[in-house]
């Protein structure tokens, strides 16, 4: 082969935010369109990132296109800042975006990239939430062809999706969709809100923060703009139900670490087979614990 191919100089050659400026500009243009048409899956030419497809490359491309010096970034996975994938993504941004601060505190962040959770603490107008999306299209369970799904979305035709819910109730007396709950945005497009639990879906409704959703492998970006309706798809007489954290006696379980009774809980199995529950949002758990400790000190 041609011996004339030289190796590039070392990694110092990467530009701010890894992606070249043209790519970032293109993503920002796509974003504008996505925000203008709430819930519409806007196609874009997703770039390959140095982490696997499915590890948050869609969210990361959004983050890298938006972030600038002066921003403070928080990255969470399963609600935690210290899970391997969150650490990896945060490390990558630190490496390629000099001048950007990172934080584990929800309220300090201007930009939050998350997989599978929306933080417990309510977000503000000053914050942008980026969610990582594996499957952008809620219609895929009833229609495999993307071309046909596009028409169904355009016409707001979600009857087959609702029929799936109907069949669920007939078969199980319950809607069996656990996460990725189809949610109608601004009265038209139904989105896959990413694999957040049903617990987090109501947080999308009239959110103060801009919520952006990026699917890298499927090459789609969509958005829930601030103060926009986001309603889970339901029947008039069958209420939408979030995860049930009550014990056998009907009491709301508390986090075994901080004692919170108003957070999404992770269930854990100890070596002896017994079960405990703890906050999935690590920052919220730390915060609640700190407040409680402070109170105990005061009373003591």
């Amino acid at each position, binding site marked *: 082969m041609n011996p004339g191919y030289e*190796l590039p100089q070392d990694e110092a050659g990467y530009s701010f935010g890894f992606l070249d400026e043209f790519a970032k500009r293109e993503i920002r243009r796509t974003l504008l369109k996505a925000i203008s048409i709430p819930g519409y899956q806007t196609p874009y030419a997703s770039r390959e990132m140095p982490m696997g497809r*499915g590890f948050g*490359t869609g969210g990361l491309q959004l983050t890298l296109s938006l972030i600038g010096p002066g921003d403070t970034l928080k990255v969470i996975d399963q609600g935690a800042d210290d899970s391997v994938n969150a650490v*990896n993504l945060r490390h990558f941004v630190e490496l390629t975006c000099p001048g950007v601060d990172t934080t584990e505190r929800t309220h300090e962040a201007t930009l939050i990239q998350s997989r*599978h959770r929306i933080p417990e603490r309510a977000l503000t107008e000053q914050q942008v939430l980026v969610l990582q999306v594996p499957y952008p299209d809620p219609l895929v369970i009833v229609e495999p062809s993307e071309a046909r799904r596009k028409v169904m979305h355009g016409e707001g035709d979600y009857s087959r999706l609702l029929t799936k819910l109907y069949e669920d109730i007939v078969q199980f007396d319950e809607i069996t969709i656990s996460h990725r709950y189809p949610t109608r945005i601004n009265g038209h497009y139904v989105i896959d809100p990413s694999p957040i639990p049903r617990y987090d879906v109501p947080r999308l409704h009239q959110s103060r923060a801009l919520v952006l959703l990026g699917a890298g492998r499927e090459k789609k970006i969509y958005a829930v703009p601030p103060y926009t309706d986001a309603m889970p798809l339901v029947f008039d007489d069958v209420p939408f139900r979030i995860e049930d954290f009550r014990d056998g006696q009907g009491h709301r379980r508390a986090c075994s670490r901080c004692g919170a009774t108003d957070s999404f809980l992770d269930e854990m199995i100890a070596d002896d087979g017994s079960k405990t529950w703890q906050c999935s949002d690590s920052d919220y758990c730390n915060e609640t614990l700190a407040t409680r400790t402070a109170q105990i000190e005061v009373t003591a």
Partner: protein
Amino acid sequence: MGYVAIKGGGRAIRGAEAALDALRTAEGEAGTPLTLAAIEQQLRLLTSRVVSEGGLYHPRLAALAIKQMQGDTLEAAFALRAYRSTKPRLLEAPLQDTNRMRLIRRISSAFKDIPGGQMLGPTYDYALRLMRLDLADESPEAFRRVSRRFMDEMPDSDLPDTFPKVVDALRAEGLLPPVAAQPQEAFDITRDPLVFPVPRSAALATMARAETGSLLAIAYSNMRGYGDVHPTIAELRVGYLPVMLPHPVTGELIEAGEVLMTECEVVAMYERDDHDGPPVFTLGYGACFGHNEVKAISMAILDRALQKGMRDGPSNPSEDPEFVLLHVDGVDSMGFANHYKMPHYVTFQSDMDRLRTTQSQSGVEQKGVEA
């Protein structure tokens, strides 16, 4: 205790890196590191796969990726792609003329004799797949002798630099459709997403950097009977294509370098013409960076199958553009298969909630000990 299960992520990642590198150097004192030149030359077909699936013609960088990823073609191609994401697109190459390829191999299975003649070149096609144990302990001297002897014994040849293409002869006879006077503008899959229906050039570009095994599997389904392309290879050629780019100042086309590539043109059963013309054979086209014949042939068959599907509607998976084009990319499919290893605690919690609720609807009592 439970909560620390996903703590210490940073340390774990650093540990994983160190463990990988330790395995790479596990030969210990006796080991010698692989040189990039050795990978590029001695593992040239591996390098070929990586440049083609990585979508970046840089054999030396591909060799580095192979070394770094310890021989995993999916990971190595992936690294090249990620590197490519950092580079701006400086210009759009004009159409390149593969008539001008400097060939090391060309064959046709359609005709015994073809203009310019058949040239078997470097191929395993007729090699006996018997283990060559003499390679096991090859001495450096013996190694160097092989190449020297080949050059010494090469007869003075009057081989031309380029060869005419077999399909041109068929075209001249009116057996193939004429080349479109106005070529379609090429679709750039690195800049535009696939929104179906897509033009043929988008399909070709997607397949040109597809993962070899995925492409082969779907093409094979067509060959076996989930489809009816029944191809004949008009020409398969391997060689170096001079890349012509416009001079930044004068705009004149100049040779900027060359790329090793494999090109395959298959002729398939004839079809009625849509525009009152006589029936003609149909053509399938495949081409990729590097020397990778299975990929070029698979791509040519799928190109034909997809053209049929785009025209008449797909009657099997290999004719369905969405099915084929969205499932052949190695970076996409490998990444997604791997992502299942990431934590899914939250979604699984949701799943359990649904199952428990459904179970209790049907009167099942919950088991389990609470701490």
